[in-house]
């Protein structure tokens, strides 16, 4: 395996994976830290390595709107964006999902302004969780790249047909150089079928897309989207296993566990911080601590059943959120985990929410240890609902 690895920038690995999946139309607008992905794709096209239309648009709103038209015409499509760009696309996100167009977009997670900040947190994609897009969060560069063919396969499935965000932490995964296996063309040609939707814009079989639905029909469109997310729950697991069998790489399906089965303290998180958590767990386990990790890979659809099962034996649960819902004093993962446990008798551990890493603030092992120690205070009757884990006292 080692002799198939190359050391490349995370963005390059992702761009290469996109190339291998053979999209027909790519349309993106540059914004840090997504830029290297679109630049690498432009270079592939300029070198004749891609048979696609790569359109340099004038804004993110247009980038995604262009893909709405392209996808409706039957093309496999790709875009990438982050932060302000994703926010600018907000109404188009609803539009793409409502029209059931399986567009794939890498979101290179970055903080939202104001204040303007180019570094990593997950506020951007988390803020879009109601728009009807599938959201998977990658742990490392290899997963960021391998997620691309997996998401195409899930999104284009005829029972799903929803657009998807492949989320990867900005700079931490996009600009890091890691040894990876570049996505294999021959395996992918077998793994990923062509995109062939039932209805396309075609003068030989004219159909009208994007009609308006009055109160007598609108609800059922939303219901069908929700059902499609239900189908996606199964499909994400299936595809992850299929991928593992073909390529020999596995990152979990909807969730994944690390030293989870007997853990009394379970840490839940999404994205690149998983790596640091695993190192922390290794360290603490040597000291006899009963601590484990529940990685949430799929945030939408939200894997409530899987999470409930995984937390059955936990005594206390810690959630890490690189986002905040201002006014709730909580991150989204915390809120949604608590909600899915609330009516359930099987898993009833207290959930302690920590928000951290905003605007790219580094998360060292010491911060994770600090959170675990705070969680242990539950035994003494000290319960923390939700707080910032890395607040600077000198600035607060």
């Amino acid at each position: 395996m080692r002799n198939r690895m190359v050391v490349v920038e995370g963005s390059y690995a992702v761009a290469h994976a996109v190339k291998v999946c053979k999209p027909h139309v790519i349309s993106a607008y540059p914004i840090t830290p997504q830029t290297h992905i679109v630049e690498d794709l432009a270079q592939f096209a300029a070198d004749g390595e891609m048979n696609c239309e790569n359109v340099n648009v004038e804004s993110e709103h247009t980038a995604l709107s262009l893909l709405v038209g392209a996808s409706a015409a039957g093309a496999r499509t790709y875009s990438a964006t982050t932060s302000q760009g994703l926010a600018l696309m907000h109404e188009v996100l609803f539009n793409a999902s409502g029209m059931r167009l399986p567009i794939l977009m890498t979101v290179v997670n970055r903080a939202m302004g104001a204040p303007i900040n180019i570094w990593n947190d997950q506020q951007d994609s988390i803020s879009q969780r109601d728009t009807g897009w599938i959201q998977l969060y990658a742990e490392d560069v290899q997963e960021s790249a391998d997620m691309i063919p997996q998401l195409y396969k899930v999104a284009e499935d005829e029972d799903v047909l929803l657009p998807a965000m492949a989320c990867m932490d900005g700079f931490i995964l996009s600009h890091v150089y890691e040894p990876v296996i570049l996505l294999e063309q021959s395996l992918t040609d077998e793994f990923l079928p062509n995109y062939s939707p039932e209805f396309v814009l075609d003068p030989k079989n004219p159909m009208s897309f994007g009609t308006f639905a009055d109160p007598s029909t609108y609800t059922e469109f939303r219901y069908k989207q929700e059902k499609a997310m239900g189908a996606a729950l199964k499909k994400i697991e299936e595809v992850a296993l299929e991928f593992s069998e073909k390529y020999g790489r596995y990152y979990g399906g909807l969730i994944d566990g690390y030293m989870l089965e007997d853990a009394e303290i379970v840490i839940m998180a999404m994205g690149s911080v998983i790596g640091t958590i695993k190192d922390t767990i290794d360290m603490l386990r040597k000291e006899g601590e009963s601590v484990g990790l529940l990685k949430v890979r799929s945030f939408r659809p939200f894997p409530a059943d899987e999470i409930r099962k995984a937390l059955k034996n936990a005594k206390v649960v810690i959630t890490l959120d690189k986002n905040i819902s201002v006014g709730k004093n909580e991150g989204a993962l915390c809120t949604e985990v608590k909600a899915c446990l609330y009516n359930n008798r099987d898993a009833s551990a207290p959930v302690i929410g920590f928000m951290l890493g905003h605007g790219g603030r580094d998360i060292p092992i010491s911060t994770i240890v600090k959170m675990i120690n705070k969680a242990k205070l539950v035994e003494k009757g000290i319960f923390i609902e939700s707080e910032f884990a890395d607040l600077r006292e000198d600035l607060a």
Partner: protein
Amino acid sequence: MKLIIKTVAKPGSSNVNKTGAWRSFMPVFDHKLCNKCGICAMYCPEGVVYKLENGYFEPDYEYCKGCGICANECPKKAILMVLEGK
């Protein structure tokens, strides 16, 4: 009604909507005055003034909304807007 998930609708499915029920005035075509210029058919916003085999024109009253453009534009004044009974 089977819902098609892409919010797609079949072409021409609007013809279930019989807009002829909208009108108060109906156009009456007098072929004796007509010179077959076709202006009535050209400027009908519904596209429901049809050329007959004999070259004269008649509207499809199932859809005619009675807007009166045909009567207003006819160079021979061969179309009269008549208040519909009922």
